[in-house]
């Protein structure tokens, strides 16, 4: 079992997480071509090596960005999608 790092809760077992897709796969808005739309739906980067991915930590429900290596399974970094406002 891999250890993923939730930016809010720290390292936890991978079974606590839900995969949300490649980071940067922005939902196309409006009257886009079928090709653009189906790329958004079905085209996965499936990159070898470092990959930027969206994950949700099911325990705290926070969605975050994790960079991980798809070959070595090293977790390179985790960050919250929205930085907390400075008080």
């Amino acid at each position, binding site marked *: 079992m891999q250890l993923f790092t939730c930016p809010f809760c720290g390292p936890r077992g991978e079974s606590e997480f839900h995969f949300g897709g490649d980071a940067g796969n922005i939902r196309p808005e409006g009257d886009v071509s079928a090709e653009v739309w189906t790329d958004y739906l079905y085209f996965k980067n499936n990159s070898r090596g470092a990959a930027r991915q969206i994950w949700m930590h099911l325990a705290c429900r926070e*969605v975050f960005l994790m960079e991980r290596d798809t070959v*070595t399974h090293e977790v390179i970094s985790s960050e919250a999608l929205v930085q907390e406002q400075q008080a």
Partner: protein
Amino acid sequence: MSGWRVETQGWAVDRSRPVRFTFDGKSVSGFAGDSLASALLAAGVTTVGRSFKYHRPRGFWSAGAEEPNGMADILGTPHRVNVQMTVEPAQDGMVLRSINGRPSAEKDRNAFIDRFARFIPAAFYYKTFMFPDWHMFEPRIRAMAGLGALDPAAEGHLPTAQANAFCDLLVIGAGPAGLTAALKAAEAGRKVILCDDQPVAGGSLLYREALIDGVAGPDWAAAAVARLRELGAQVMLQTTAFGRYEHGLTGLAESLGQGDAPRLWRVRAAETLLASGAIERGLPFANNDRPGVMSAMAALQYLRRYGVAVGRRIIVATNNGIAYEAAQALALAGAHVTVIDPRADAPACDLPRRRDRIEAVIGRNGVEAVLLASGEKIAADAVIASGGFTPTVHLYSQAQGKLRFDEAIQGFVPERKVTGLSVIGAANGAFGLAEVLADAAAAVGAVSPKAEGPHWPFKIDAAWPAPKAKGRIWLDLQNDVTAKDVELAARENFVSVEHLKRYTTLGMANDQGKTSNLPGLALMAQLTGRSIQETGTTTYRPPFVPIPLASFAGIRGGQLMNPVRRLPLEAEHRSDGALFREYGGWLRPAWFGKGEEAEAVNREAKAARESVGLFDGSPLGKIEVIGPDAGKFLDFIYYNTMSTLKPGRCRYGFMLTEQGAVYDDGVLVRLDENRFIVSCSSSHTQGVALLLEEWRQDSFDRARVQIHDATSRYATLTVTGPKSKALLEAVGLGADLSDEALPHMALTYGAFGGEPVRITRVSFTGDRSYELSIRADRALPLWRALKETGRAFDAVLLGGEALMVLRAEKGYIVIGKDTDGRTRPMDLGVSGPFEKKRGEYLGKRSLHLPAVSDQARAYVGLESLTGEVLPCGAHAVERNGSAKRSIGFVTTSHFSPNLSRPIALGLVENGASRIGEILELHHLGKSLKARIAPVCAFDPEGKRLHA
């Protein structure tokens, strides 16, 4: 009968404590401390199994976990198959059955198969099972080939809870390397876990002649374990590290004795040292699989540890120096030993010796003599064969560590450390004791203890199987693969190691080729003119040894496998005679009272339409969406426009997947301007809550919309039927229930026993209905009041089955039952938003994709023409000549007690424009007819909603 007890040897067995077990019905006696293998050898049993494919007699090759031959089924509770007798301690009363030998390993009636061996070469099964019809051969072949036999009636292991552990340093293997590293690390204050698959720590120290810091091997090992425990280290014996996983995780299986499943440990270590030693491999000569042919270190271990000599006239054949220790020890014990060593620089030795190699073993069921390459024949009853040592690098390789072929030791060794894991000692290619201790001490930054002995230098000359050798030279003893099979694979161009493995099954048996992989690929290297390094190894995968599935399951069997969610009123329903079933993960009443299902369901469904039905709808989703952007958010989430909904009102709608299929349906309730409740289907609450949360954080201002799943906080009690309003008024909720104040699809509040009650007027039955939501822990008094007051109104308790009949009479959808993964909202008759809704919503663009919009199935009613209830799942077919094509299927089917006839629903191509047409249905070879009808079969005008 060649093995015998040596009275002066065998420190591990307690001769005052005899144990007795049976093997193929014969009584065998040994001592406490014996393995099953040592006891059998001492009793003179040489043939302990029959081989997988050819039914050749086989004996013990090793004394450890690499054993390819010596397996047995242990009968009793639990019934264990293919247990390695070399590692299983002998216990009183065990009942062993040999593998693949009937009636026994010794007298196997299928032994004749070996004479037909040339007709069943490698890939025989692949070729045979293709032509003309493998069903002809499969059962016979299956009965004859194989290993242990399962007993379907036998009990399995008792479940064992799994455990997790964390440490600074995990050391795998308690031989000289592992003990040294663990001890030095523990002394330096690190938190250490040390594991070993044997019941006694020491590894090779248990049988080799050596002193560490002046202390004899077994004594030094025992003292090291005592000191480790004193320092707080966890020493786990009979515990096999079977797999290496990501991020410092190692899987261990701890043997707990006969009845319990081995305990699975997940050990997360900052650093792991693999000190798993090396495995001895054999020599290539004809009939090198005969019972009585054994590895040198096994023979030495049986002698010194268990006090068993494997023969009286012993041939020791070797290509390296380590085997000399076994030769000397056996000679000292009283056996007549002859050494066969072809090396020019063999060490001085006073035993009879030939500078030669073995050509073949002579003897049908055991060793009678050996034939040397020179032509000389020497009588013998056992052959010790040492072809060198293969470092046990499995866990390193599982961690994606790269291997390098080391010519000096003729074996693959780790190239470099991988993250968090280093390899030390013999597993790292260090074969001298001083070298091993230095390697281990260096790994933990400590000074090495002082080593003395063993005195024979390793010095190996390669002795790999050669192409075109005479006779049958065995590589994989467990899967019956010979050198000729590898040559056949090369001729047929299966030359990559992965192809070689699958074509010949080399290394594919339970032992995963621990003794056979390297000789096999060394032969392939010669056949293809490549080096061994270039030829490479197959991929190493966990587990290192077979682990019972019960260990992986742990205690998560039965109800704990997938715990059901329970209603707050479950106890009350049980006392009312409910029969429970699981619906979408919830345990709910299916019907109430004794009697047959059909009769009970019909009674409930009929009574609910005549008077009033009470239904526990607590699992109904109650996900709150809160905030100034909640309306905007829900417009995006729902297919329907929701922001126009007025506070205090409800609206039915669909949620789609981005692919355009209907994912969920339900009623949205608007409590006030900034607060909604998503009443999704019971089985979808977790999925919908996640979906809402993902989109909220992805695309919306998270400060302006919040999600809160309150499903389990509230019980929802549904009151439905013509007398529902009268019943609620009699119970007294303090709310105005008049149709003006509370019309259909509206909301109000009341209270019961001082507890607020949210009342929504929505209907899943087609009759006037009210859903009362109240704090889950305060629901019981309200439910009891409904039941007690309800007596005067002929109220009936409704189970889930009757509710399904009521909704089907109305044609109301159940998502996932009446729909599948490509059902669009338009197919369900809701096309307004598709045509008119302007803003973005989930799945919108997909609804306009050609592939999606070309689909044209519609949700319709189906009337049985024969009066029998249509089978759910039956396909509607369209004929074109003799060709048939499915054009849809039945999704729901019941007998309707209120219409006194069968009703059904389904998805049918162009169904909406084909009302009245007759369809041909097919189901399991049966043909039926049905008429397409409108979905709503009962009260199509909808008058009863307001009645």
